[in-house]
């Protein structure tokens, strides 16, 4: 007789295909520095949008027709647009095509596409390198820089809608272009190890600036503010993680943003201008990683005086103030639109150390407000 166990159900729901190959990439793929040339020439692109469109088309052109079917789903494939997670790709499937299965030309083209929408690729490179590091330090074949997936939804265009997804374990980039305007959320980044690590002679420290920027906010606070911004309850992960996985809609995630009395913490407009600058710096640590044409208007919206009158910073955890080396430490920025969380979890592969899960969302414009 057939029985359905709880987790098997999710396995069935999550894994529509099978990901049977182990990581085949090397640090080259992670660092991108010695990667093969993509042969994609976008030097004639004038604006960042033109460049993104050019790089996306260039990437797709490097693919075989079978590869392109996987890497270029229709924009209407909404279930796939929400197929991202923080978990390793062997546990939860992703949209798009696996980097490790692509030729080095195609991989280079994919990374150039991401470089066109990001001013700062150190997090992208560093999190992939961290996966290689985990694979070599106890994690085994379920981790690796090759186990990251890239997808271009629809037809890249400066006017019509299209989207980019890039991610895998501890990473999700979801950039939706609506009439030429880019929306960079939901954006998940996590990393284990949290501390600096060296791989093939290169040292990486992704998310250190994000983590430090958040802690700095609370370090600047008076002890009264530190205790009034402390949330009760335990946070073992971010609240609004990939809750909408494979549903094709943002309903599930929108339902989890706090409302009413759950919107609590210290109001940013009540802080000094120096402290507010720290909040701005923290927001920029996520948002300004994206190209200025995408991020600058968002930063303006998120950090305006009006926005700060409705933006709360809060934290949780067992220590007297946020300590990122204590498991269960949690920090967040909760604005009318901006939503940033950092959760410090216990180590999975590397025992005894905490690691980061972070999420950056826009309460109104996740997926460009198209889902």
């Amino acid at each position: 007789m057939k029985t359905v166990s709880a987790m098997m159900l999710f396995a069935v729901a999550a894994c529509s295909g099978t990901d049977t190959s182990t990581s085949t990439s090397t640090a080259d793929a992670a660092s991108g520095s010695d990667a093969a040339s993509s042969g994609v020439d976008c030097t004639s692109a004038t604006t960042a949008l033109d460049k993104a469109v050019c790089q996306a088309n260039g990437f797709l052109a490097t693919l075989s027709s079978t590869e392109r079917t996987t890497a270029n789903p229709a924009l209407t494939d909404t279930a796939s647009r929400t197929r991202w997670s923080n978990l390793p790709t062997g546990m939860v499937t992703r949209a798009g095509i696996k980097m490790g299965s692509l030729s080095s030309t195609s991989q280079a083209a994919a990374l150039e596409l991401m470089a066109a929408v990001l001013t700062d690729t150190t997090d992208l490179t560093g999190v992939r390198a961290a996966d290689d590091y985990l694979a070599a330090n106890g994690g085994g074949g379920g981790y690796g820089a090759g186990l990251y997936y890239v997808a271009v939804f629809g037809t890249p265009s400066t006017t019509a809608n299209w989207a980019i997804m890039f991610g895998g374990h501890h990473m999700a980039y979801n950039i939706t272009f609506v009439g030429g305007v880019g929306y960079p959320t939901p954006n998940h980044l996590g990393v284990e190890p949290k501390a600096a690590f060296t791989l093939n002679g290169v040292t990486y420290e992704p998310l250190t600036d994000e983590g430090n920027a958040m802690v700095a906010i609370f370090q600047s606070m008076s002890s009264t503010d530190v205790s009034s911004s402390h949330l009760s309850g335990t946070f073992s992960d971010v609240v609004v993680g990939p809750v909408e996985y494979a549903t094709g809609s943002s309903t599930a995630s929108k339902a989890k943003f706090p409302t009413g009395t759950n919107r609590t913490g210290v109001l940013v407009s009540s802080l000094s201008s120096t402290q507010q600058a720290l909040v701005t710096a923290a927001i920029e640590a996520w948002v300004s990683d994206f190209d200025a044409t995408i991020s600058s208007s968002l930063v303006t919206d998120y950090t305006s005086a009006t926005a700060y009158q409705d933006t709360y910073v809060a934290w949780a955890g067992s220590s007297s103030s946020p300590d990122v080396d204590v498991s269960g430490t949690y920090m967040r920025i909760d604005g009318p639109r901006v939503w940033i969380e950092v959760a410090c979890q216990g180590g999975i592969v590397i025992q005894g150390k905490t690691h980061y899960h972070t999420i950056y969302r826009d309460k109104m414009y996740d997926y460009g407000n198209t889902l």
Partner: protein
Amino acid sequence: MVALLVGLGLSRRAAAHDVRGEVIFLDVGEQAVEVELSVPMFQLALARRQSIEQLTAAPREELAADVRGSVALRDRSGRPFGLEVGTVSVQQQEAGPAMVFALRFTPPRGASARWFELADELVLRTVVNGNVYVFVRRDLQNAVLGDSPTLVGTLHYQQRRLTVDRTAGDRRTSLIAAFHLGLDHIREGTDHLMFLLMLLVVAPLAHARRAWSTAATARRGLLRTAGIATAFTLGHSLTLALGAVAGLALPTRFVESAIAISILVSAIHAWRPVFAGKEPLIAGGFGLIHGLAFATALSGFGFDTPSLVLALLGFNLGVEAMQLVIIALTVPSLMMLARRRGYAVLRRGAAAIAMAASAVWLFERLSGVTTPLSAVLDRAARHGVWLAVGLAGLVVLSFAWSRRGRSLRTVAWAARESL
């Protein structure tokens, strides 16, 4: 999926990942709501503010009390359902160990078991980022039959209550759903079908003492087929009813192994007669065992007496309808082929396959070890219609061959006459 995780070296590591969250399966019936509540161990430990070791050591009564204080169903007037906590166990699931609670909620007097407001604070009272996924797993009235649960809602810190309304549907939809359940159950029941087919394969034949011989008359063949089918139907209907109504149940391993034996016996009988003339008796006798297996398909639906009778009726009708279809598709071909000279090859070939399959099944069911064979057979069963097509094809071929033979013989006779 487990093999995949092990292959990727993730099996132990995966245990620590916060995969999803709490999962609730609801089996909704007329009398009660059966709930299977499954929480990842680490998340329950966090919710109870203790270590996993402390949680593992917690006495069952304490955990049951925790659940009683945290999980509730209420009717439209806010009155709570009665709650019995059944088994509390740790299960190793794909994503790691989980604590699984079996709960039974009964509605207050006068209230329906099909409408309730579910509240679950077990994890959410502490773990702010927790999610509780609520599925309806069985609800016959709405054709949810157990093998593909429906997600009806998610609880989280901002939404700790969920209204579950399963009042749609009526007796008619229950009957239809039960009918489909019966149809599917025998269509996918490779073992039941194999037993039946082994008996049908020899129904058209007469027999000398210890060997099968040529075809009996068509009338006799048809009568025998009818006798076998009726006896099998009576047998399995009886134990199906007893199982569903009186809760008659034998250990699954025994029933499944006995079914494998029944196939082995009927396959041997198809090779050479073991109980010639007594096929209906064997069909009826083993039918009793097969019926016990059918009864498990109707378990977990929370029937009251009227809905149980209806479900039984519908299910049985479904089984018989599919049985008739299978007989109609195969028996005419078998009867025609039985007159052909090569029939013994077909008969013994089929018997050999059935003997091998039943031997493997018997091994699997007794030892608990799964072999790849069951997957192969299940897939073959899904394409069972090709068997009927194949048989019909053989009939056509055999006629063409004999016609060819006849024209050759005519030519040979003419040649001889002319010489």
